[in-house]
């Protein structure tokens, strides 16, 4: 950058122009990638959604709003929409609460804390396909350890991934296990920045640990919590790998989610136009959801010292 700046300095620009040129030069690399792999595909999928486009064929036919009309009357679309929303609404809050409790518990100077932190972070390091396969085994109705445990505790054994009632909750449990460690790490980093003297003062005033958590910790790391909520929602709306590995959307579409439905339409049914339409709907939903969260949760975020 220094070289670039020197190079630009030799030209008799106004200072402001120079500055914006430097800025543009610095943005250029990421702009190229964003354009090629994000903005261009979005525009293309918008174009495709108004057309009949088939995978492996050059022929494209204009349809107008037909794809959108089909999406809105498609029961399977609404089912996968409901499944995705249910998954997000339950998984993300629970994972964040777990992560917060873990982070607070591991933000102390107990012996071997690094080991505990690694242990809880470990699920994040397992590739999701491998993790999915392992949980398929854990959930197996006949010989799976989870049903073994249920049996030992005197609870009824369940069909888990084979049951249309329990398959989605089963995947959600696994997701919480996988997300918590990741969120924990982010929250832990934020906790390190909370001034210790606040806790000392609270302790002198006889404030309980619970109240310290609610009135000191949570407000002071609220920007990070906010970040984790947004990241969590984006992650959970993209959930694909677990479902693909563990249930393929079944049984009876009880675990079909929007990304899988897009994939099925594009690659199993070769209907790129319809898949693009669903993808655009997903984009709109996420946009609305993020806007809602920004307008509610985002307003309550407390930025220390700003």
């Amino acid at each position, binding site marked *: 950058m220094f070289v670039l700046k020197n190079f630009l300095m030799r030209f008799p620009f106004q200072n402001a122009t120079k500055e914006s040129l430097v800025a543009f030069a610095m943005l250029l690399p990421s702009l190229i990638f964003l354009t090629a792999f994000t903005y261009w595909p979005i525009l293309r999928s918008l174009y495709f959604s108004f057309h009949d486009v088939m995978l*492996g064929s050059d*022929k494209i036919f204009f349809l107008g709003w037909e794809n959108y009309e089909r999406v809105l009357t498609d029961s399977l679309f609404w089912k996968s929409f409901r499944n995705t929303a249910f998954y997000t609404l339950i998984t993300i809050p629970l994972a964040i609460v777990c992560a917060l409790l873990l982070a607070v518990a591991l933000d102390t100077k107990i012996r071997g804390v690094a080991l505990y932190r690694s242990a809880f972070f470990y699920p994040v390091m397992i590739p999701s396909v491998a993790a999915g396969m392992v949980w398929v085994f854990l959930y197996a*109705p*006949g010989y799976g350890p989870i049903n073994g445990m249920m049996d030992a505790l005197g609870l*009824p054994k369940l069909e888990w991934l084979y049951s249309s009632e329990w398959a989605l909750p089963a995947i959600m449990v696994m997701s919480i296990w996988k997300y918590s460690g990741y969120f924990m790490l982010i929250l832990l980093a934020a906790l390190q920045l909370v001034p210790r003297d606040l806790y000392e003062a609270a302790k002198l005033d006889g404030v309980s640990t619970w109240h310290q958590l609610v009135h000191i910790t949570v407000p002071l790391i609220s920007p990070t919590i906010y970040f984790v909520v947004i990241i969590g929602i984006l992650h959970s709306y993209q959930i694909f790998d677990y479902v693909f590995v563990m249930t393929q959307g079944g049984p009876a*579409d009880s675990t079909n989610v929007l990304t899988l439905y897009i994939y099925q339409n594009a690659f199993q049914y070769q209907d790129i136009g319809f898949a693009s339409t669903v993808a655009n709907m997903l984009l709109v939903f996420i946009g609305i959801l993020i806007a809602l969260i920004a307008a509610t949760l985002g307003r309550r975020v407390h930025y220390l010292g700003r």
Partner: protein
Amino acid sequence: MTSTKLPISRRHFLQVGAGAITAAGMLGTTPLFASGTDVVKLQFMYPVGVSGDINRIVTGMINNFNASHEKVQVEPIYAGSYDNTEQKVMTSLGVGETPATWLPINSALQTFLGMDALADVTAMAKADDIYQDFLPGFLSICESEEKLYGLPFQCSTPVLYYNKDLFAKAGINKAPDTWTELMETAKALTIRNGADVSQWGLTFGGGWHDWIFESFVRQNALVPWQKDKVMFDAPEAIDALEFWVKMVKEGVMPSASTWQGSANDFMAGRTAMLYHSTGSLANLRKSSPFEVGVAFMPKNKTYGATIGGGPILMAKNQPDAHLQASWTFARWMTNTQNQTHWCKETGYIAARKSSWEGEELKAFANEVPAAKVALDQAAYAGAFLQVPGYHKVREYLKSALDRTLAGEIDPTSALKDATKQSNREIERLMRRRA
């Protein structure tokens, strides 16, 4: 879960796991044709569509083929389920790296024809004994407008499997032969403790229940599709779904199941009767700790069955020498001897008359009368849902069945909706083709 279930399920788990890993490893595909040598190298993509050790059997056959053919070498590519396999082929068609031969479900024929992907092998078949020796019903699943596009390899129909021990315990000595008897038998075999069902009377293999459903519609004397439309909302079809709903409401049948899970349930004695593919016969017999009975699917107006399983199809876009080699391979996989062994080892129905006339299969049918049930039932069987856009149409139908059985919607509205959506999809594809 009984302890008897343990080895079966574990083995299946390992098998599926290994399959998934193999499939994942294959995502970077190898080039299609070898160049500069006399040996023609072909790829063969195939699925495992039933419960059992099919992958090992297919690979074994291909090893034998390679050992006995110097000029042709076939690389077996296990690609997962039927859907996975078809999808892999379609994707490879899109990028021009199609395998030379593959094995889809017969219903995908129109889809591949729509993509102009299939070699017409009518002339080669006419120069051979294909038209004389294959059972006509099975050959017809590879035909469109009197042209032949493949050779039937793994032919199946759903059959009714029943647990003879549980039948004896309930004092029933014969398999049901009509829908009414089916309902009565299922009622007599269902065991519940309060709200919990410890033994179902009947389970349909989920995931392919649309295939089983078409059999029920055929038992009402209707084929619910033509080459350019479906009639899932015909009275015959609505009646069939109403019968299913009745069985679920009576509590003799679960409202949903999975393909593998239902087979496991049967082997573990958690369901007394099972509708599943004939291709699962060998495995169910081998792995069940009780005597397995096999019967025709009960009739209503008539007996009826849908042919599942698939033909070996050959790619159009390949040099003549490769097409010739593909034919040699397909021809070999379906020769009399191999169809006999394949039938004995899996339960898939041998597609050749000469296999059934041979001593080996005759002796086997005497020893295992169940093997012959499928063949006899095949006289009432026809191809499964051969319409353009089969994958999506199937999904519409399955979704209609699932929602109805889950009690979310009534049979008539569900099937009307599925018909409307399916026909719209078929129209779209026909319009593309025109």
